[in-house]
């Protein structure tokens, strides 16, 4: 890895995108969830809540956490929520793949997937073979975005802006809207809305 100096703001941005990526990659286990009941997670949510644009979605997340707290095994309840939203198809949930929203067929592995593969190939990258998900998965896109930000060091490259606009924002609204049709604790719906709010605020800021 080449040593570049990275501005504090870019470090924060990257960290946040990675945080979203982590949440959308897979279910939280018992220990990871505990952090959101009384730990670092609470702190992070509190900080984010202070930003007016984010208040509504953070509240949604917090209320979901309150709902599931008294349940015997809250991590399982949240896992069921996760599966209900992200592991089903478009009719019942919100599969986290760009192809589903952007292609005519509504199938997986369509052009948006090919675009991501081409992008990665051009830069000598691949999706971790253990992850076994299509490259247009939202978590992979966010992970890549975090890396783009770090790579840019102190500034913001056109590539970064272009990636956010063409590869993510092109389908994020549809995706977030799809999550909303699922009725459960609302934790992941809140996360997705927070992501939507954050990325919009972010792009506005860096373009300014």
């Amino acid at each position, binding site marked *: *890895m*080449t040593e570049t100096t*990275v501005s*504090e703001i870019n*470090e*924060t941005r990257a*960290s*946040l995108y*990675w*945080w979203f*990526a*982590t949440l959308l*990659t*897979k*279910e939280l286990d018992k220990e990871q969830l505990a*952090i959101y009941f009384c*730990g*670092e*997670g609470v702190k*992070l949510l509190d*900080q984010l809540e202070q930003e007016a644009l984010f208040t509504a979605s953070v509240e949604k997340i917090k209320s979901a956490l309150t709902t599931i707290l008294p349940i015997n*095994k809250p991590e*399982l309840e949240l*896992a*069921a929520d996760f*599966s*209900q939203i992200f*592991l*089903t*198809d*478009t*009719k*019942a949930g919100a*599969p986290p793949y760009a192809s*589903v929203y952007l292609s005519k*067929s*509504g*199938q*997986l*592995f369509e052009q948006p*997937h*090919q675009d991501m*593969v081409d992008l*990665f*190939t051009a830069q*000598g*990258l*691949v*999706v*971790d073979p253990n992850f*076994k*998900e299509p490259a247009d998965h939202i*978590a*992979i896109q966010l*992970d*890549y975005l975090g*890396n783009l930000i*770090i*790579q840019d060091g102190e500034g913001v490259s056109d590539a970064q802006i272009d990636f956010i606009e063409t590869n993510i924002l092109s389908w994020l609204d549809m995706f977030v809207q799809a999550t909303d049709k699922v*009725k459960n604790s609302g934790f992941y719906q809140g996360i997705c809305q927070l992501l939507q709010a954050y990325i919009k605020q972010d792009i506005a800021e860096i373009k300014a």
Partner: protein
Amino acid sequence: MSISRRSFLQGLLATSTAALVGPGLIQAAHAAAGDTAGQWKVSGSHWGAFRARVYAGKVQEIKAFEADKYPTDMLKGIKGIIYSPSRIRYPMVRYDWYLNREKSDTTQRGDNRFIRVTWDEAITLFHDELERMQTQYGPWAIHAGSTGWRSTGQVHSCGNHMARAIAMHGYTVNKVGDYSTGAGQTIMPYVLGTTEVYAQGTSWPLILKNSKTIVLWGTDLVKNLQVGWNCETHEAFEYLEQLKEKIARKEIRVISVDPVKSKTQNYLNSEQQYINPQTDVPFMLAIAHTLYKENLYDKKFIDTYALGFGDFVPYLLGATKDKVEKTPEWAEQICGIKADQIREFARMLVKERTQIMVGWSIQRQQHGEQPYWMAAVLATMLGQIGLPGGGISYAHHYSSVGVASTGAAGPGAFPRNPDKPDKRIHKNKDYKGYSSTIPVARWVDAILEPGKKIQANGATITLPDLKMMVFSGCNPWHHHQDRNNMKKAFHKLETVVTVDFTWTATCRFSDIVLPACTQWERNDLDLYGSYSGRGIIAMQKLVDPLFQSKTDFEIFTLLARKLGQEKDYTQGKNEMQWVKELYNGCVEANKASFPMPDFETFWKEGFVDFGKGKDWTRQAAFREDPEINSLGTPSGFIEIFSRKIDRYGYKECQGHPMWFEKAERSHGGPGSDKHPIWLQSCHPNKRLHSQMCDSEQFRATYAVKGREPIYLNPHDAKSRGIKDGDLVRVFNERGQLLAGAVVSDNFPSGVARIEEGAWYGPVDEKIGSLDTYGDPNTLTMDLATSELSQATSANTCQVQYEKFIGKVPAVTAFGGPKEIS
């Protein structure tokens, strides 16, 4: 680009995010990507052998294998199966079952939440349940014998993998028979000495040369020959084309005995003998009556080759208990064919060489044994059995039957049975008085009425008290009858495990769902040409298993590992070594007759062709020497009267073929006042049973408003205010469904068709709820054909339909589990 995560955590969020961010998902690629055009590979399917272009890890296009001159357009559906949104992507467990195991709320089944688990946990759960069943109950509590059409490929044959791994753990309940030919395959060994339904038939060239008349009795060759048990190459279509020409030149007469104008009839431009549904036996009896009365039957043939004609004639003449003479006039009242026309038909049959081809539809109804038996009696009376282009066959519509066999040996299969049965972990064979094998269609009865005693093929079966079902590549929520009855049964089950690649209704009603990959995500081999044994085809892996799916071989190897017997399971060989082993076994078996290249050459070429087989006449050997080449019947002769069946003392299948009124029948039959329409649920034209229904874009080519089509008679539709393309609610006292109307002249009044294999998607989990896509088995009756075969009676089904008005519910059949809100 260099890739990182979690290394720059300072500032505002530094303290908090460190613990919140997981490892990265992207890494540096090791090798540069290859060519840009992609690579052509060989594979196959029940729909046909094909070549596929694979580029960037994706199947880009598919074209028919060059040896297949008549490919079906179902090849267009293949990509849609691989990339279907209905694919099972991860091992999933029903949430409530995960929390409460056997005490879970089973009434939620079909409408519930699932959670994702790791493979490790999924296999542990699967294993623990098998273990619990064996220790808490016994081998009678687990049914792991139900199998379906599998995918092609002999190494990954899913039923074999399930059977082998589970047998290494303990004994379970098994099945006999299948849903397609249950009645036929049970009755025919008593009559003609083999199952007939799975037997090679007289070769087409001999039929084309010698037959003057071909009677298609309830069989639709053109529709059903599109799919095959192995990788199909559609050789029979060449002969159908020749037949069409011969009909045009009036060299052969083809008459289709069918209530419906079949696809075959429309293709061949041939004649139809209309008959009321389910009344084939009265028609046949009246033909026999005419042949007997007019002395047109072959006495010498009967004397030499058959037994029991003398015991049958009194029934024909009305000298037995029912006192009804089976005259054409009597039959006319039932089958709707004019008496004189029946006589004409009988005379035509004996005039010249006549080949009778019987389909499977007429045995998938109540008393399905009778038309099969009676057709054999007719053929015996004609005396042409064993002559080229004469006699009778029961399978010319199936898997290239009628295309001469090359005689080459096909590849074997991954072994179904454990190599070391002594190492079975649970050796308990005590079924507590329950039967260890049950007729395939009676498992729902077993769950609902355990301990009930039923008669089946000469034996008394005690239905076992099933607690756990294991399915692999098998979709009973398509092939079994009466969905609402099945829902009741599934409420009683403690655990259901299903291995599949797509979210069938069976998966949605299960507790543990394991994702297999499709047949195109693994290396394998199979025969092509099915019954013709035309060649061996390589099934080269097109893409890696998608998501977390695994091959059947891998899945059950994991289970075997859990049993501590991984090596006994795999014999220490991996997938490719098994492919090679099966191929080399085939080379060895064909050594003297069919030289084959070494494995590497075969795999590179993609196939080995054995050439054309020699034309062959069914039963010719028997006709030539009935003593040495005796039939497999108890006497060795054709049994017009079976003393063996007579001795069973059954009510609905007695010593000789008879007419029995059906539980439901159209055209004035029982139940037709309330539900006047006969619903036929024949094999689909655009699927293989329920396989490929999940292929979305292809489904859209035939679905009507997103629903399965129901084919309606124009007059019937009009009288109900239904137009082509309307949504129709079809119902009877057993259930209700939504389907899309296709109005067609091919269908007579009182008859409607919904093809079986349409996926089940009820509005909710409640009993009686409306099916949103159009699965005909929501309406069919779960009724045994008779005490003899206990087979399915799907074609005995009366319904009513009306134009659907009101809020249209969304289709819930596809895309995985629908969940409680």
